[in-house]
């Protein structure tokens, strides 16, 4: 036996799962065979009256199924069989005639939770790492080992759908409220309590569980008519969130529905059928690729492994307490628990910044994700001043002042005069080349760029930009710190716009051209949300701020010439002091901070009359402007790999995940057809659509960005 060891404690057999050579427990075909063998072995063992299943890993119960295993599957049949076999094994756990207690400490996810659900009693620890959930939909799949059947039966249709359709996981305290676990105990007594519970169950029989949710639960979860309402609402919510681009949540909903309305057997059949279909489907494949890419990025420090040692960051200094600076401060305190000092030119600004950062901590407290003492501790890590007091002890200083070269250079010079020689200076800029900011630096090896996206606490991406002078240990320290802040980090070259703004720029500019041609704003935005972006380009301009976008557009024009020449729409808007959401006047109208429809008076300002437009062509222009620029930037080695490029586009600008990213899309469409489309666009709309030389080359060689 490889993964399991057993021990008998007074008639209770404790099975410890500890997958050799892995940091976490995963379920695979091999593990399943072992479980089957264990069940047979203990079925007729007179010395075993009950069983406890516990993990031998530190703070991990079972992380889920082995993803590599099912990505190797090539046919729908094979995938369906995998799910079916998983269902069978889990069912044998459920029907085992001696009680089985799941003793859960650490992540209990996916297949791990499905297995736990089949056990007869669940005890979880109150450790923060104890999380229970069915994240399958996040990989374009559904729970395929009976999870769609057992979870709604245990906690009710509404609560189960909430977990399954979003893939979110719950802490132990919430799991207890939901009825997902029977007890929550401290980690130190988990095994002891589980053994006692198993013994009790063997003597007294299985526990009776009352339906949850009171009167509402009785009506909505336990009547067929009530459940119809629940399904309808869930479907509507899913379509709203996915735009119909992601099939998994609807398939999961169907598997739950069939199971509840037509019985477990029918439900299980629907479950493995849908799992098989989804597992080999394109969307799941893309989402799994992204999962692997982000997993790989978590281990990628941007330098060859072992070539540089990251420095410990105990103190963080932030200069500029505006939206960016305070967002960085709050996110750093929350995720890294680092002593953070915020500096700005006057104390009122510092206070406002401290408040904004504190707000992020307060939000987490109000959502009960942290306790009051944790809140007190975290807020005590935040401080601020109008001078540089405390900066001499900073290990990392992040500058987030106004986007102006002179100001940034001045701040760098001031900081270099204060900090220890080995302290790192990171500049948060979206467009200014880092080497220009670092031009007069005394210690250019300690300077790099950290480009955060706004709002910092929500945007998952961070671009880290070394210059040619940046030392490897500076780079690796910044990458690691960004990752500890919860960001997916890509290391990109010090070229104007770096990666994300580089490919965004022609896309937004094309939106400007469309506006100047009189294409209605809602058409432009709608075609792109239909394409899969969370917001359209015009709405995005409003969010970013038209002044900021205009300034960035100017920098890009200067760097890349004619093809990035601004369409002119932004300068007209700025002429009428329209800055976007921030001053409540942009392409859209805003009421009390909420978007309230297109502002039709904009058309007159732009000197156009809105007219019908060919939606397909509009979409093509916008998408291909971005694809073409992506190919150019890639050829210039702005990114280190296609993987980084696509992850950057997905996490940085919301490029639709189910399309896998711009380079993956070029591969899927085929470089030849991409070139063809660009030629057509070039003919009508001019040189800015001239295909990238690298695309031409790729098309000649039938090349790809990723191996086929």
């Amino acid at each position, binding site marked *: 036996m490889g993964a399991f060891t057993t021990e008998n404690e007074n008639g209770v057999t404790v099975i410890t799962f500890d997958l050799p050579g892995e940091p976490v427990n995963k379920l695979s075909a091999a593990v399943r065979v072992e479980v089957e063998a264990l069940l047979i072995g203990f079925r007729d063992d007179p010395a075993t009256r009950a069983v406890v299943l516990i993990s031998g890993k530190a703070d991990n119960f079972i992380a889920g199924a082995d993803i590599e295993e099912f990505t190797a599957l090539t046919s729908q049949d094979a995938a369906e069989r995998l799910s079916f076999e998983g269902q069978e094994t889990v069912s044998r756990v459920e029907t085992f005639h001696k009680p089985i207690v799941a003793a859960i400490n650490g992540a209990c996810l996916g297949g791990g939770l499905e297995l736990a659900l089949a056990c007869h009693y669940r005890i979880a620890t109150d450790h923060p790492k104890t999380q229970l959930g069915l994240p399958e939909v996040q990989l374009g799949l559904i729970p395929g080992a009976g999870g769609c059947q057992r979870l709604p039966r245990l906690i009710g249709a509404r609560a189960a759908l909430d977990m399954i359709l979003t893939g979110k996981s719950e802490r132990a305290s919430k799991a207890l409220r939901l009825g997902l676990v029977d007890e929550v105990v401290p980690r130190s007594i988990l095994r002891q309590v589980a053994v006692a519970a198993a013994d009790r169950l063997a003597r007294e029989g299985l526990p009776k569980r009352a339906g949850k949710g009171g009167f509402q639960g009785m009506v909505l979860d336990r009547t067929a008519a009530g459940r119809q309402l629940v399904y309808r609402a869930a479907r509507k919510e899913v379509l709203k969130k996915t735009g119909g681009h992601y099939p998994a949540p609807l398939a999961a909903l169907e598997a739950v529905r069939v199971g509840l309305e037509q019985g477990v057997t029918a439900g299980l059949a629907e479950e493995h059928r849908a799992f098989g279909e989804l597992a080999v489907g394109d969307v799941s494949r893309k989402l799994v690729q992204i999962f692997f890419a982000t997993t790989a990025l978590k281990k990628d420090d941007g330098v060859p492994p072992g070539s540089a040692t990251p420095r410990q960051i105990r103190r963080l200094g932030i200069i500029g307490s505006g939206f960016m600076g305070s967002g960085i401060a709050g996110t750093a305190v929350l995720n890294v*628990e680092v*002593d953070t*000092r915020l500096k700005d030119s006057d*104390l*009122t600004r*510092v*206070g*406002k910044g*401290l*408040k904004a950062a*504190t707000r992020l901590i307060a939000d987490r407290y109000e959502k009960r994700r942290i306790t009051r003492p944790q809140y007190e*501790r*975290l807020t*005590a*890590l935040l*401080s*601020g*001043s*109008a001078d540089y*007091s*405390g900066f*001499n*002890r900073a290990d990392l200083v992040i500058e987030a002042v106004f986007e102006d070269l002179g100001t940034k250079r001045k701040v760098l010079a001031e900081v270099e005069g204060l900090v220890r020689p080995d302290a790192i200076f990171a500049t948060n800029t979206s467009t200014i080349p880092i080497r220009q900011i670092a031009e007069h630096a005394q210690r250019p090896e300690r300077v790099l760029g950290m480009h955060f996206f706004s709002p910092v606490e929500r945007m998952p991406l961070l671009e880290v930009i070394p210059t040619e002078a940046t030392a490897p240990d500076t780079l690796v320290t910044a990458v690691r710190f960004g990752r500890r802040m919860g960001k997916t980090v890509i290391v990109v070259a010090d070229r104007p716009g770096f990666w994300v703004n580089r490919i965004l720029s022609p896309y937004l500019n094309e939106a400007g051209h469309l506006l100047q041609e009189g294409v209605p704003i809602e058409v432009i935005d709608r075609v792109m949300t239909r394409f899969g972006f969370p917001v359209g380009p015009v709405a995005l301009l409003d969010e970013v701020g038209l002044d900021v976008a205009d300034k960035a557009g100017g920098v890009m024009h200067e760097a890349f010439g004619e093809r990035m020449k601004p369409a002119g729409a932004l300068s007209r808007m700025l002429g009428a002091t329209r800055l976007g959401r921030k001053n409540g006047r942009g392409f859209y109208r805003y009421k009390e901070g909420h978007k309230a429809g297109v502002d039709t008076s904009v058309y007159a300002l732009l000197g156009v009359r809105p007219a019908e437009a060919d939606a397909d062509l509009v979409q093509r222009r916008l998408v291909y402007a971005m694809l073409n620029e992506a190919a150019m930037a890639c050829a210039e080695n702005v990114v280190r790999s296609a993987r980084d490029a696509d992850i950057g586009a997905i996490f940085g600008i919301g490029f639709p995940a189910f399309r896998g990213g711009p380079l993956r899309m070029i591969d899927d469409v085929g470089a030849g057809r991409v070139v063809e489309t660009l030629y057509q666009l070039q003919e009508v709309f001019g040189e800015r659509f001239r295909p990238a030389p690298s695309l031409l080359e790729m098309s000649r060689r039938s090349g790809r960005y990723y191996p086929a």
Partner: protein
Amino acid sequence: MIDIRPGRRVAVVAGIRTPFAKSGTVYRDVSAVALARHAARELLFRSEVDGREIDEVVFSQVVPSVLTPNVAREVSLLPQLPPSVPAYTINRACASAAQAINNAADQIRLGNADVVLAGGVESLSDLPILHSRRFSRMLVEASKARSLGHRLATVGKVRPKDLIPVTPAIAEPSTGETMGQSAEKMAKENGITREEQDRIALMSHQRASAATASGRLAPEIAPWFGGRDMDEVVSEDNGIRSDTSIEALAKLKPVFDRKYGTVTAGNSSPLTDGAAAVLLMSEEKARALGHEPLAFIRSYAVSAVDPGWQLLMGPVYAVPKALERAELSWKDLGLVEIHEAFAAQVLSNVQAWGSQSWADRLGLPGPVGEVDWERTNVSGGSIAIGHPFGATGARLVTTLANEMRRRDVEFGLISICAQGGMGYAMVLERR
């Protein structure tokens, strides 16, 4: 310098305080713990000392919260300090923070610690309000009741007057006399006039106001981010009246003896919220960490008198004792900081130090010394700046040490009168 005391020399490295504010104003909704933590944390940042260097935290609070009786531990649990730093809270009434500094200094002197963070806090906006004894007893009984009926029966005994809360008064437990009444008594017995008192108050405001305006006090103040949006920045003490005048002060009605009294709200220190903290190190440690000490602690002394006599005359005894221990005389002092609880008390102390009859009582060959106001309370005092009981001692040490450095003065003294008839004095030295 002469080695007048055994053990290591203790350096005052830095001091900081929150702005002092009249109770019920800007810190209305702020806990004493939050004020104390703010001062301590800013002290670390300003002095650029790593929290890992701190060996102990000693804090003081005169009226502690029942919920956080050991405020020092809450300070030492700041995330900037390792959780392994022990902490305790002391109370020597209005001399508390000075006493906290002493305790810290003694530990350094003895070699038990190298770096100690000492200070104090008071929030009279965050006072514990008590239930009446009878009501408290019923609550305890009710919580122990075995049945609902029994519980209701207990609660049923409550009378309306039991519900009137008990607010702690600033009165002597042994005599029942309030501070103000004591000051009034001292003014009468020592023949201190209303005008003399108002002149002291005016000087306090004018000097504090000038020191604030010139930025001389700014280095000892860590601004507070107040208000719902933290954008109401407080960086100055809000009790200082730059516009007050002898006429305005003269118009105020006496508070404690409405008919024949002279003590008014204008010539007394106000109820105040605030915190102050001082960083102390052994001289060697300070030098090793690259700090230029502001001053060193040379000596201190504490005394007490019968509270039923003249309550605030303690300093008259403490000061000569501290000077004797410092092997100095009054004329060696370049700067003096006298805590101004009441102008009447300040003037009574000054009168006693300067008189031969008091020298006879104290068994001294001549008077302790004549106060030179050009060298005394040069940046104002507690009447203007305010007096958070637990914090004042640390403010005085910080202000004196900063000013000694500014003027390059060799010796300075602080004098504090305290509740319970106690007096306190400390001598600082430079060089």
